[in-house]
């Protein structure tokens, strides 16, 4: 195999890199006049990239096994692409002010660079490529969190994120170093058989896995989440809660299945307690939040617990339900964040109390928000119900009845706080509700796509069938 044919399997990375480089040149060359078209061009190019990489091809590896490709990865990357595209559609208002105008390009390169990092992380076949991908995803994310230079909250959240992220990757690297010391290799495929349950390896595994749990913000490692979600610009928060989280979940799943298959009893125990903690603590803290971004941060923590419930089942069914759950979660969460950013952009209001009486003035926005809340809570006709049902089904098949019971009780608790937002919008009286807002057409498009996804993703068989076709288990 000559050098260039290595890149055949990396075509999604190469095309994304092409988009990034083109936008970089465009930003440098285009003057003030050309920059007006920057967002449409960026969205168009990224949509073309998404369409080009829609179809899976045969599995393979390049660069001596450093990079591995499997058809399921196309499915994951497509889900990430759809989420990023929706976030770009919602990002227009970020650049409305004059001060922000010359920062327009940076938002897109940084976001796309983190996406490229996640691509590498997802397809890695070696711990080094995995680590590089992870850092490539988290370092630009820190700059995105601190994007608003004049805003105290944004700066504080950026500092908190970069320091805790570096700390967690240090812990993870420490684990990797002992895995290397005991196994003598860093290739995923070679390491799988060299992992025996000796105590040093179990310790190394625990250090390693804590670093990944940090990225997914499962409970003992969730302390950064609420602060960073609140301080970051709303678009970056939505990127955090869907794209960054779902890529880390997929990597966790492939690593547990493929590399740490021999340690299955250990990680079963670890995940068992972490899932119980995550779902419960996330729910209980969400109950007492007044700020809607903090509220969605804790809601996303407990959603991550449900996703991990699909991971622990360890079967091919588990993998397909996790990916399906993530897709539905992308639509519902981005619908909620689209409404929040539309309101924050015009009025600056972020408290749940401000949403009282929203239905009288903005019936369409409150309808989309209601759909999102119903779907996140898992109310029957919407996609959120179907995806939760599948996750519980996959876990129940592995006889994890206690976990399913606890998760089901928590779904009922979560109804309280999701419906509190709906009640505020539709029932509560308010003398000074938010005035009628004009949403820009890009954001409108994204909200329409999200609502269509929430309503149809639960009904269309083709989605879950496609995902199931490519999933694999332990």
């Amino acid at each position, binding site marked *: 195999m000559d050098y260039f044919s290595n890149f055949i399997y990396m075509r999604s990375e190469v095309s994304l890199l092409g988009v990034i480089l083109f936008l970089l040149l465009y930003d440098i060359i285009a003057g003030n006049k050309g920059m007006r078209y920057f967002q449409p061009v960026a969205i168009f190019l990224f949509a073309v990239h998404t369409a080009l990489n829609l179809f899976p091809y045969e599995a393979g590896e390049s660069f001596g096994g450093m990079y591995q490709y499997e058809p399921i990865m196309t499915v994951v990357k497509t889900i990430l692409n759809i989420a990023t595209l929706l976030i770009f559609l919602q990002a227009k208002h970020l650049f409305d002010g004059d001060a922000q105008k010359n920062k327009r390009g940076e938002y897109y390169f940084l976001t796309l660079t983190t996406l490229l990092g996640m691509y590498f992380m997802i397809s890695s076949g070696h*711990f080094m490529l995995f680590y590089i991908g992870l850092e490539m995803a988290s370092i630009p994310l820190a700059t995105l969190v601190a994007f608003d230079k004049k805003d105290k909250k944004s*700066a504080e959240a950026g500092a908190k994120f*970069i320091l805790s992220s*570096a700390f967690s990757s240090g812990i993870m690297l420490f684990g990797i170093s002992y895995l*290397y010391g005991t196994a003598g290799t860093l290739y995923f495929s070679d390491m799988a058989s060299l992992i025996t349950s000796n105590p040093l390896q179990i310790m190394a595994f625990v250090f390693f896995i804590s670093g990944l749990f940090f990225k997914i913000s499962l409970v003992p490692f969730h302390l950064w989440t609420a*602060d960073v979600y609140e301080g970051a610009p709303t678009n970056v928060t939505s990127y955090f809660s869907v794209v960054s989280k779902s890529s880390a979940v997929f990597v966790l799943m492939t690593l547990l299945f493929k590399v740490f298959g021999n340690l299955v009893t250990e990680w079963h125990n670890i995940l068992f307690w972490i899932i119980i903690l995550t779902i419960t603590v996330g729910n209980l803290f969400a109950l007492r939040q007044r700020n809607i971004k903090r509220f969605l941060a804790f809601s996303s923590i407990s959603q991550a617990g449900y996703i991990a419930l699909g991971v622990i089942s360890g079967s091919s069914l588990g993998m397909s339900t996790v990916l399906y759950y993530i897709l539905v979660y992308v639509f519902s969460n981005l619908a909620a964040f689209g409404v929040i950013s539309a309101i924050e952009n015009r009025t600056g209001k972020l408290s749940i109390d401000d949403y009282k009486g929203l239905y009288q003035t903005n019936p369409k926005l409150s309808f989309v928000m209601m759909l999102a809340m119903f779907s996140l809570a898992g109310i029957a006709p919407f996609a959120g119900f179907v995806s939760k049902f599948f996750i519980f089904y996959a876990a129940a098949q592995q006889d994890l009845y206690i976990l399913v019971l606890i998760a089901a009780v928590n779904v009922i608790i979560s109804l309280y706080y999701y419906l509190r937002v709906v009640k505020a919008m539709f029932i509560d009286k308010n003398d000074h509700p938010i005035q009628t807002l004009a949403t820009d057409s890009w954001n409108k498009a994204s909200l329409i796509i999200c609502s269509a996804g929430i309503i149809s993703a639960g009904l269309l068989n083709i989605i879950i069938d496609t995902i199931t076709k490519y999933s694999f288990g332990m």
Partner: protein
Amino acid sequence: MGEFLINAGGPIPMIGFQIVSLIMFFAGIYGFFTRRNLIMILISVELILNAVDINFAVFNRYLYPDQMEGLFFALFGIAIAACETAVAIAIIINVYRNFGNADVDNIKHLKG
């Protein structure tokens, strides 16, 4: 430990490096939780990353001398740690500009 001291004239045994890297690692963790200044916290994180680099180099040299995987990982680790530090320093400078100091106790706008 006794063997370690007697052997002082010969090559250093692997356990010696392990002790150094472990001390660095836990000093870093301790510093991360107790220091109040953002720059000091960053230095603690760097201690952790450097402990890991020592680990990789030592495991490679002593246990698997016929391959280079660990040394390369250490090299890449150093490069990525440098990137991380650069971004962290930039953000800390921004914090300093906004708050007037870089002390954790004063930076508490976010809570709920």
